[in-house]
């Protein structure tokens, strides 16, 4: 077992998560929502069909993904501590760092698997309405996976100090901040923020950023983003938000790493 404790703790948390009713329900409900999305899209033709289907898909990936990510992150250690499991495992020889790494890795895998399952269901739905495989939608799902990983890890870090409710609220704030950072930077670059432009640029250079896929920004610019990407306007001037480049992808990953370190440090210091 030497060196494999984190792996054993990962497998343990994975097995327990796989039995949690809320998660199984969420995965199944998300996959089933593809049916009405495809049925509604099938009533349209051409670009309207693609927009309708992708709007529904983006809403599912955003809202469903947020629910799963926040729940996984906010319950990273709080429930295990309250119920006595974390204490039992540490008293039995698990190092706190191993417990943190194992549980964060398990939750990351579950989040990715959930989004992966929904993406597969969405691809099947796309084929069913005669659109074939939708690569831009798959890329969008990948972008959302990174955004939700950020939210999940933020919730995990806060959850080592506060309860799950506070962790969930802070994680939502992180999501809003990440999205606003990108949108306000776009507004600054288009000269719409006046004297606040520098503040927006500083925020962009320091805060976590939302990873926007080419598909969603294209739909947003045509006011077809739906609830997942409503048109962004300042003083009735539409602001085109650019798709995330490699710099933003790496920057957000760095923030994910920072939140993971904070979550690990929080678990190391927390009474169990």
């Amino acid at each position, binding site marked *: *077992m*030497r060196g494999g*404790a984190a792996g*054993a*703790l990962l497998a*343990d948390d994975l*097995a*327990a*998560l796989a*039995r*949690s009713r809320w998660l199984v329900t969420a995965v199944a409900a998300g996959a089933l929502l593809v049916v009405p999305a495809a049925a509604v899209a099938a009533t349209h033709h051409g670009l309207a069909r693609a927009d309708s289907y992708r709007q529904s898909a983006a809403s599912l990936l955003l809202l469903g993904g947020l629910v799963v990510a926040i729940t996984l992150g906010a319950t990273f250690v709080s*429930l*295990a501590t*309250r*119920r*006595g*499991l974390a*204490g*039992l*495992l*540490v*008293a*039995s*020889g*698990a*190092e706190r760092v191993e417990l943190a790494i194992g549980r964060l890795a398990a939750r990351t895998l579950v989040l990715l698997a959930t989004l992966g399952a929904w993406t597969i269901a969405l691809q099947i739905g796309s084929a069913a309405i005669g659109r074939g495989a939708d690569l831009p939608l798959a890329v969008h799902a990948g972008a959302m996976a990174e955004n939700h990983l950020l939210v999940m890890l933020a919730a995990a870090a806060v959850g080592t100090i506060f309860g799950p409710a506070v962790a969930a609220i802070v994680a939502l704030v992180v999501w809003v901040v990440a999205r606003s950072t990108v949108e306000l930077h776009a507004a600054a670059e288009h000269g719409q923020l006046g004297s606040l432009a520098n503040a927006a640029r500083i925020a962009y250079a320091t805060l976590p950023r939302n990873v926007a896929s080419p598909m969603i920004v294209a739909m947003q610019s045509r006011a077809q983003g739906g609830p997942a990407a409503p048109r962004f306007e300042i003083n009735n001037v539409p602001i085109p938000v650019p798709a995330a480049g490699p710099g933003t992808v790496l920057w957000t990953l760095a923030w994910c790493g920072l939140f993971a370190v904070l979550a690990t440090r929080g678990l190391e210091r927390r*009474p*169990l």
Partner: protein
Amino acid sequence: MTDPLVAAEGCSVRYQRGAQAAVDDVTFTLGPGDGLLVTGAEGAGKSALLRAIAGLVRAEGRLEVVGAAPADAARQGRVGFGPQGRTFADRRTPRELVRLVAALRTRSSPEADPRALAEQALERAGLEPAGRDARALELEDVRRLALACAIAADPPVVLLDDPWEFRETHAECRAVRERGGCLIIATDDPGGLPALVGGRVLRLVERVPA
């Protein structure tokens, strides 16, 4: 003179810096074959003391377990902890949980077989439905599961928080002391437990020894 297995001197536990102590100024020494019953009303600090010995909360003053800091002793698999309550197993089966506990406790012994050790512990604790989800267990079986977790791989220091008095509890407590380990039991209902620890009792009243 034999080295103590657990030594506490002026030991206090605070969950937050500056907060009132959950348990204060506790002093005792336990050597091989010794036992201690920690009693007191709910909130008296019994569980806080056990959690400090298990390395789960930091203690002020001197607290050593098998010659090391409590967290180090736990990391070396020297501590067996049977938690209180009924929810600690969460969505695991008893077999899965005790296997994991045995694997963690014997991590530095490549020759150990955690599966076999877990099966032994489950049998010794008298836990029959070891393959069922722990959430479906009767409370009696959850308390047997806590006992199995504590005794898996026979650690030298066994801590039982609010154990139930089964025949198996009596047998295992005797066995711990006979093989040269030490035993600490926390309870607010001593019943026949004082006999299992050799009559040594630490009574906590409002978080300090009475």
